[in-house]
């Protein structure tokens, strides 16, 4: 199931009142919140600015609808207009409590990248997506 809404948000604990107990403790900074009826995911890049062709990491928190930590199963990114993905395989590091760090991301070309995030809680698995423009 695709995310029903994606939004640019300030990643502070108050950014999503409906799930205020979810540990969105990514620190201050610009990032994104992606959510469906089942999951809420907050993320921000490290370093804060994504540059074309430069490696970056993503810090993520994943929560379910009951405000409990959920699991990030996989992450990938593609350029739909160009029919290709990344040239690099990111590594997903589980930091516990629904917190993750993904290393080895590289958007090697300018344009629209579609991030695909497979998340799971209990028996529910779904794919959330988020578009990112890199210039």
């Amino acid at each position, binding site marked *: 199931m695709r995310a029903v809404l994606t939004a640019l948000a300030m990643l502070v604990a108050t950014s999503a009142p409906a799930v205020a107990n979810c540990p969105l403790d990514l620190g201050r900074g610009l990032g994104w919140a992606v959510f469906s009826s089942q999951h809420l995911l907050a993320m921000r890049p490290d370093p804060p600015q994504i540059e*074309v*062709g430069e*490696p970056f990491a993503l810090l993520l928190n994943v929560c379910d609808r009951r405000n409990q930590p959920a699991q990030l199963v996989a992450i990938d990114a593609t350029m739909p*207009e*160009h*029919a*290709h993905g*990344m*040239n*690099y*395989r*990111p*590594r997903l590091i589980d930091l516990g409590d629904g917190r993750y760090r993904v*290393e*080895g991301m*590289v958007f*090697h*070309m*300018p*344009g629209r990248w579609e991030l695909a995030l497979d998340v799971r809680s209990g028996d529910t698995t779904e794919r959330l997506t988020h578009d990112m423009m890199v*210039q």
Partner: protein
Amino acid sequence: MTLRWIAAGLLIAIATVVIAAAREPAPTFDEAERRAIAAHGPWPPAPRRDLSNRGSGQPAAIAFGARLFAEPRLSADGRLACATCHRPDRDWTDGVAAGQGAVPLDRRTQPLWNLGHAAWFGWAGQGDSLWAQSIRPILDPAEMASDARRAARLVREDATLACFHRAAFGAEPPEDERVLVDIGKALAAFQETLVSPRTPFDAFRDALIAGDAAGIAAYPDDAKRGLKLFVGRGECAACHFGPRFTTGEFADVGIPFFRRSGGVDPGRFEGIAQALANPFNRLGSHSDSADGAGATRLRHVERQHRNFGEFKIPGLRQVARTGPYMHDGSKPTLESVVEHYSTVSLDCLHGNTERLVRPLGLTPGESADLVAFLRSLSVEAPLPVAPPATCP
């Protein structure tokens, strides 16, 4: 009589085209185009140090590297120096379709401009650092055909080279392989200093950002039209991105990958395997970065089927002076390169490849404009000044 009429008709047609071109208003650029143009600068960029190379940015290592670059005794037969193919007087390439090492080679000699900002080296990206890539031709039986023992002996036994080595890296290591690595790192330190000069495009780009009308007007209209195609309909800037006009990655652009010597050139598909297996890569013991800084790409690079037949996206600075073109040197002129992208057959591309590559269907005028823009990325570069001689 008929010939006269034909000639007269042709003259009228040419005159009409010339008049039409003369009346064409100077191209202008919208906000998106201005942003895309701005992304190709500023130039030159700030120097970047390679943390895996303790000689990077160090004057003594640069001087040692400059000396080694012209040193034919690094090759097995004593006749081939780096500078034999990467000629300082030819924008650090050789002007021929395929290189010549100990034997004829399959790929074109790449110019060495602006490598201090690159991430992968060689047409297939088989090197993940400039120093690893500098060691490669010394050991390659098809190129300089030497070995660590011979290279180390040269530096130990030649008093001048030994002096340069000590000045750059301190006490001489006992292992031949470590001396060879120092040679590669010095060569890299020298090559990092090869930054191409500012060009008419850079003056225009800066004027456009500053709103300098005189600076904008000084850039020829045909180059402006070509630039508009480059960042617009042609989508060239998707791969030839940024100040160096390359993303630094790899692409299949429909050039046949059959080798002159027979068989096929797998390009990036093989390059990734070579980079991962290279004992001199950034994850190996010879890196001067203890925490593997700068090795992120190597740790995460993924070999995929679509890498087969992909080759390095070359930077375009000094492009008018560094032909012939493509990895195999099969395109002799910029006109022939533009013609390729104008008429490329999709049948020449491998499956699952980049959708950006498709026939652009350029008119002769558009092709000429694109070439005019590409020419504006080049100027005559002064020959490098030899570093001060620190050793007798």
